[in-house]
């Protein structure tokens, strides 16, 4: 078999392997609620291990697997449903929700920008870090405006999620706050989907506020990214 034909088979196998490892991670995590089985951590680590061990070039891996990434587009649109479902919460506490969204976006982008400068990170990394605290479909769109790389941004979003999952509870215990809304907003704004999952474990209101804050922060960041990119350079 020639190289091109071989690579086509390999690319299709990589797509199947990605789905299989993901399904396996979900199954494992459902049985043992241990953090290292969390699909967010387990699936990328196992796949990176396999790709490194077999020496499959990334372009071959991505040739078919990019169709999975393509699905992030329709997923952006799907977020209209939870916003619509939770409109009563927005109507009841519009200022609180808006405050959480604005604080989350400003602090998320601001802290990444300041820290990246303080640590003298190269521009490619610094730009890709800016949208790391919002959900991936929004982060990869915003990173285009910042001049970052979609791949690096996705990785940083995942690391942010894993970090938020590990430290969320500790921070909740340390911080003196009483309202359920603050707990939910904190988790949704700082660590998107992973934080929202944690918030759902705390209670229904925390979960709803986390999900709203995460989604609205993502939309807001995509809308203001072109303006911010001009300022932050």
């Amino acid at each position: 078999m020639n190289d091109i034909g071989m690579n086509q088979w390999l690319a299709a196998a990589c797509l199947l392997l990605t789905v299989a490892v993901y399904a396996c991670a979900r199954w494992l995590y459902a049985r043992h609620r241990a953090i290292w089985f969390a699909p967010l951590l387990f699936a990328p680590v196992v796949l990176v291990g396999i790709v490194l061990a077999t020496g499959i070039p990334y372009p071959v891996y991505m040739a078919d697997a990019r169709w999975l990434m393509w699905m992030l587009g329709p997923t952006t649109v799907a977020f209209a449903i939870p916003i619509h479902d939770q409109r009563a919460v927005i109507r009841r506490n519009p200022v609180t929700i808006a405050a959480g969204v604005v604080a989350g976006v400003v602090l998320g982008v601001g802290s990444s920008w300041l820290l990246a400068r303080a640590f003298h990170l190269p521009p490619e990394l610094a730009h890709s870090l800016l949208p790391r605290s919002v959900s991936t479909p929004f982060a990869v769109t915003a990173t285009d405006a910042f001049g970052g790389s979609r791949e690096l941004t996705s990785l940083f979003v995942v690391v942010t999620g894993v970090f938020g999952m590990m430290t969320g509870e500790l921070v909740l215990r340390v911080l003196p706050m009483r309202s359920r809304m603050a707990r939910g907003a904190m988790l949704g704004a700082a660590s998107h989907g992973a934080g929202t999952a944690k918030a759902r474990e705390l209670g229904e209101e925390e979960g709803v506020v986390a999900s709203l804050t995460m989604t609205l922060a993502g939309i807001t960041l995509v809308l203001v990214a072109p303006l911010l990119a001009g300022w932050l350079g």
Partner: protein
Amino acid sequence: MSRAIRFVPTLFQVCLLAAFWLGADALARAVGSPVPGGVLALAALLALLLLGWLDANRLRRGAEWLMAEMLLFFIPPVVAVVQFQALFRSEGLKLLAVIGLGTLCVMAGTALVVDRVFRWEHRRRIRGIARRRRESLA
């Protein structure tokens, strides 16, 4: 088999959402919109739902499936770390520090801001309700 059959409506709704996104993306590109197609499509769909022109239940299963399996969609770009090995060897620890410190910063800041604003908005709402009650009694 029955699970596969039950998935058909979900798949159909996913296709509808994808078509919606494709249309908005093509439109955004054609007119050079500063707002990306995904967010345009989201806003348009939300408007249709709020106006009551579209029933959320017609798309709910598809939307929930997409959001539940979202992680699968962004695993491929994460695997791209294999391309950046040299970069991570030199900057890896700094990156972890930026993400860790930054995330703690977002958590603490957002929590404190929301806690304050919520207490203020809550008091204002209670006062508003009490005032309206007094006025209706008077």
